[in-house]
């Protein structure tokens, strides 16, 4: 049985002030297997974030349903860990307290909370910054904390909505390796939204390309590159072949999306 099933999920936003309703997402189907790392690639405004928010339970589909381990998703919950593109650490909590937020909500005993927090602080390389407030951290460090915060809940699936979108190129590359290392070690199931082709290929075992608005899945490409992956892979011929193909796929959509705006 699939870990996550997205069945016929679509989303129509009602028109604002009597305007036309917006069809953000056409009926979409997707099966995510255990340990899958799926990246969803598409031009901006294609509904990929909408799809992720529906899986998270933060938005309700107009049609269809999402099943996680056979259970219908109705509302947000700690079994689906989410990292957002914007910085969403709680500014009044330190790095350690942010990581423990979900654990406290579950009434995990303090000692166990500390152990779990220590583990993830080490894993995302924030030792020495446990007692810093988010405002005292760089963007990359904030996103690493957000990642640790989501992982600390031991979710069934990780949902990442362009988590490295606001970071500079070098930091972004390091974050990709960090996340990939965590995935290789812990074998989490991941849904990762991005508009960066390199990122989509490097991280994934499957890349889903979405069409311009109204979004739907255009193609589903298996990425058959070996693990562990090293950043040098981004310059290999196999990588280049995937990139050439995806660039073509996404270019058509970007052009359609740009024309639709005029």
């Amino acid at each position: 049985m699939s870990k996550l099933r997205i069945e016929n999920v679509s989303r129509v936003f009602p028109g604002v002030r009597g305007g036309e309703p917006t069809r953000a997402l056409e009926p979409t189907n997707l099966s995510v297997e255990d340990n899958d790392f799926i990246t969803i690639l598409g031009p901006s405004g294609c509904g990929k974030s909408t799809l992720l928010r529906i899986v998270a339970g933060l938005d309700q589909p107009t049609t269809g349903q999402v099943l996680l381990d056979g259970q219908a998703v109705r509302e947000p919950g700690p079994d689906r860990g989410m990292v957002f593109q914007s910085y969403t650490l709680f500014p009044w909590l330190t790095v350690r307290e942010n990581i423990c937020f979900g654990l406290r909500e579950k009434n995990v005993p303090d000692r166990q909370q500390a152990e779990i927090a220590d583990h993830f602080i080490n894993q995302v390389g924030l030792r020495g910054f446990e007692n810093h407030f988010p405002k005292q951290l760089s963007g990359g460090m904030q996103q690493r904390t957000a990642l640790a915060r989501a992982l600390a809940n031991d979710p069934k699936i990780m949902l990442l909505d362009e988590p490295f979108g606001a970071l500079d190129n070098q930091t972004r590359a390091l974050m990709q390796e960090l996340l990939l290392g965590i995935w290789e070690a812990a074998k989490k199931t991941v849904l990762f939204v991005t508009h960066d082709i390199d990122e989509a290929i490097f991280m994934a075992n499957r890349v889903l390309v979405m069409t311009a608005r109204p979004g739907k899945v255009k193609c589903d490409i298996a990425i058959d590159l070996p693990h562990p992956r090293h950043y040098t892979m981004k310059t290999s011929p196999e990588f280049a072949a995937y990139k050439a193909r995806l660039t073509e796929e996404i270019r058509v959509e970007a052009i359609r999306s740009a024309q639709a705006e005029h």
Partner: protein
Amino acid sequence: MFDPLKPVSPGRRTALGILFFVVFLAGWAGITLGGIVPPLFLADPLKAAKSGVELFTEYGFAGDVGVTIWRVVGGFVIAAVFAVPLGILMGAFKSVEAFFEPFISFARYLPASAFIPLLILWAGVGEAQKLAVIIIGSFFQIVLMVAVIVGGSRIDLVEASKTLGAKRAGIVLRVLLPGAAPQIAETLRLVLGWAWTYVIVAELIGAQSGIGHMIMDSQRLLDTGQMIFGIFIIGLIGLISDFLFKQANARLYPWYFIK
């Protein structure tokens, strides 16, 4: 020196702040001691200072000051204890807001001082009436300002907390409340300042003690020195309480003051 928005060094800031007090005092001394304004209308600084000493040594003014502080703090605390939770509920839950907001917006514009004759009728001229004036003056303001602050909480933080497993109570107590706390504290600081104007108004009418009562008494004797000293004391206490409030906020919410 006049670069727009350019920060000024702490030393210079303090010096400039004190400088204006000196300018003000010099202006006051100039028009009174220089004979431009007759002493009947405005006492000179020396006379005011002398009246101040007399007030404390001969008329037991310290008791009046104590009574007034007690009234302000008492009324303000009672108002805040009820207003802050209500404001939080209104900010968090839109149906609660829809229920209370129109009435409270209306009640906010009812001038607290206009209630004084009515309150004397209901509660006499005792402490209950003084406290009631301050409560009426502060309660509605606090409720509305707290509701606006909490209602303006970051929705992305609320969403993040939901994906971490927070439910209704967790969202209110662990996201909305701590996020809004520094601004709520700032609001309370502001309203405490307003409470000082209400207490004096309450004490001008039907009071046997307090700074306002002393000012009223002095007017009958045309003692402008005492009146000015009373007003000065109110300003001084306001300045001190403001300073203490700011210090407490900086200590309680260090994350809020990180640049």
